């Protein structure tokens, strides 16, 4: 196996990147570009769609086709691209605020439609770019710049949401496991229908600082200890599961994707 670098998709002169030391976005981007290379993606056939937030800056580093959109709406833009040209590889990069807080409606509907997009979500449990405010994935009780005495709300389980909404492929990984992340992204890209890879990411600058994990190392250790391979996680009792999360491939199924269904209906309509 050759060692893919993904450099052919990287814009020259852009490194080092803008993200904070310890942030997982760079690891995700590296894994995604290596996955592209290992799958033989051509830059001209690949469209990366981003939203707004730290993750939304990722397109600036790429020399694929790209569309940088509004906060929360990246999946809707990507839906239009893919629906009109199903030959394109369309990948959507979002944060947790983007994908399931402001953009939650688009997220469940993209999964329900099972449109052949790959969503990669960097979940860092808070709004990084705007200064560490609470998001829909901030765990209950945690501290952020807008939950100074603890978060009164509960958090979304993004993977569970994708599963019940109808995604064909759902996986979760942490930057602690870069190689595995790349492998999961490859599977997601290869899967026809809606696929999701959620990346639990450290945000030492904000979430870590507010929750006694100021050092990157502490955040990574937190993710490493909490994250258990899915097989192991499923063996735990419900009470034990509360203290952990599953990593790896969580859902893998082959429901017909939107474009295929649309073409089936077109065949029926034009036969009349």
């Amino acid at each position: 196996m050759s060692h893919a670098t993904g450099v052919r998709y990287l814009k020259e002169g852009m490194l080092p990147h803008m993200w904070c030391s310890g942030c997982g976005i760079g690891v995700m981007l590296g894994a995604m570009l290596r996955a592209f290379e290992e799958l033989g993606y051509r830059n001209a056939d690949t469209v990366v769609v981003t939203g707004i937030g730290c993750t939304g800056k990722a397109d600036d580093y790429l020399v694929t086709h790209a569309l940088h959109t509004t906060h929360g709406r990246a999946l809707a833009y990507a839906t239009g691209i893919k629906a009109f040209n199903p030959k394109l590889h369309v990948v959507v990069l979002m944060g947790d605020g983007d994908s399931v807080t402001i953009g939650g409606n688009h997220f469940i509907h993209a999964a329900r439609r099972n449109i052949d997009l790959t969503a990669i979500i960097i979940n860092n449990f808070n709004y990084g770019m705007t200064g560490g405010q609470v998001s829909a994935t901030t765990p209950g009780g945690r501290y952020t710049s807008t939950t100074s005495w603890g978060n009164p709300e509960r958090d979304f389980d993004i993977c569970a949401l994708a599963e019940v909404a109808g995604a064909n492929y759902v996986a979760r990984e942490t930057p602690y496991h870069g190689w595995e992340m790349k492998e999961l992204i490859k599977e997601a890209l290869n899967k026809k229908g809606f696929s999701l890879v959620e990346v639990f990411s450290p945000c030492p600058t904000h979430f870590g600082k507010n929750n006694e994990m100021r050092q990157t190392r502490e955040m990574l250790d937190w993710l490493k200890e909490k994250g258990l391979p899915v097989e192991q996680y499923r063996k735990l009792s419900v009470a034990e599961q509360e203290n952990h999360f599953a990593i790896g491939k969580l859902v893998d199924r082959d429901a017909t994707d939107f474009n295929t269904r649309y073409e089936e209906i077109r065949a029926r309509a034009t036969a009349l």
Partner: protein
Amino acid sequence: MNELFKKGRETLGREVRLIQGNQAMSEGAIYAGARFFAGYPITPSSEIAEDCSKVMLKVGGVYMQMEDEIASIAAVIGASLAGAKAFTATSGPGFSLMQENLGVAVMGEVPCVVINVQRRGPSTGLSTKPAQGDIMQLRWGRHGDQSVIALCPATVSECFAMTVTAFNFAEKFRVPVIVAPDEIVAHMRETFSLPEPGEVEVIDRKKPSGSPKDYKPFVADADGVAPLAAYGSEYVFHVSSSMHGPDGYSNNDPANAAWRVAQLHRKIEMHRDEIVITKNFATEDADVLMIAFGATTRASRAAALELRKQGIKAGVLQLITLWPFADREVATLADKVKTVIVPEMNYSGQVAGEVQRVLGSGADIRRVNSYNGEVITPQEIRRVIS
């Protein structure tokens, strides 16, 4: 520029049908080459979605009902960048939801068409009743600072013709174009005959040529507009809602920002004469000038005919292009008349305000406003004269 429009009722030898304004707009879109529609049902525009859901399957296009209007305009922009002529249709509440992403189409210079069938508000208001209350929202509805093109048909034939024109402007100038009929015109059925293919000019966006490596999606030609590639082509490119340089990548340099913002306005200013479409009815010798748009054009023309029977020389200036505003046309005509009347289906006199701006604060502009969900009648307009 618009042959069909000039030809008017010349329909001999063709199938003549009784169709709705909404249907004429969907037929206009298909005629213009639209092959992607994404929308969300809303009265009084839903017939457009219903038509497209059937037709797109047959013409090789794609119809999608999205989860909301925010997603609809987003999908339209995505599809346009993938090479489609794409559009959506909505009404007040949905149009409000589309504003942020409509700004992306302005900023990213993405051709697309939005049909906003105007209904009576505020808010969800009277959903089945007509209004002309979105005039300022068409122009200023988005945050930031941007120019936009908005057209307003008054007949079913104009619904067709102005939708074709909207796509032509969108493609030619890389802008979103809004077609904003009132509910009356959108739901009215009128005799209509579909032009043959090729009979009405259809314009496609300029594609890049030369080396893909050198392609910069925001470097304009002499006409103020840059060629636009499609996702999937060898001309790999970036489009961004955020401030970007000539190559589409983030660029926060003040000089670059100034260049971008000015360029977005300038390309519309440069082509102002082509974009501003007006129509004159008996204005040559008029003492009384009605400045009207949409359905109120029809009431104004009927009022003018009646007034002429009474010996009062009345004429009508129909604004088909609402934005950019027809400053010059209004000023030229108003200069020659004694009385200017602006009838419109809103309380605030949105177009009357523009006319006032053009003619000066001292000008005597008689306003006729209806805001109860009912149309303006010729009698109501005539009344301000006697």
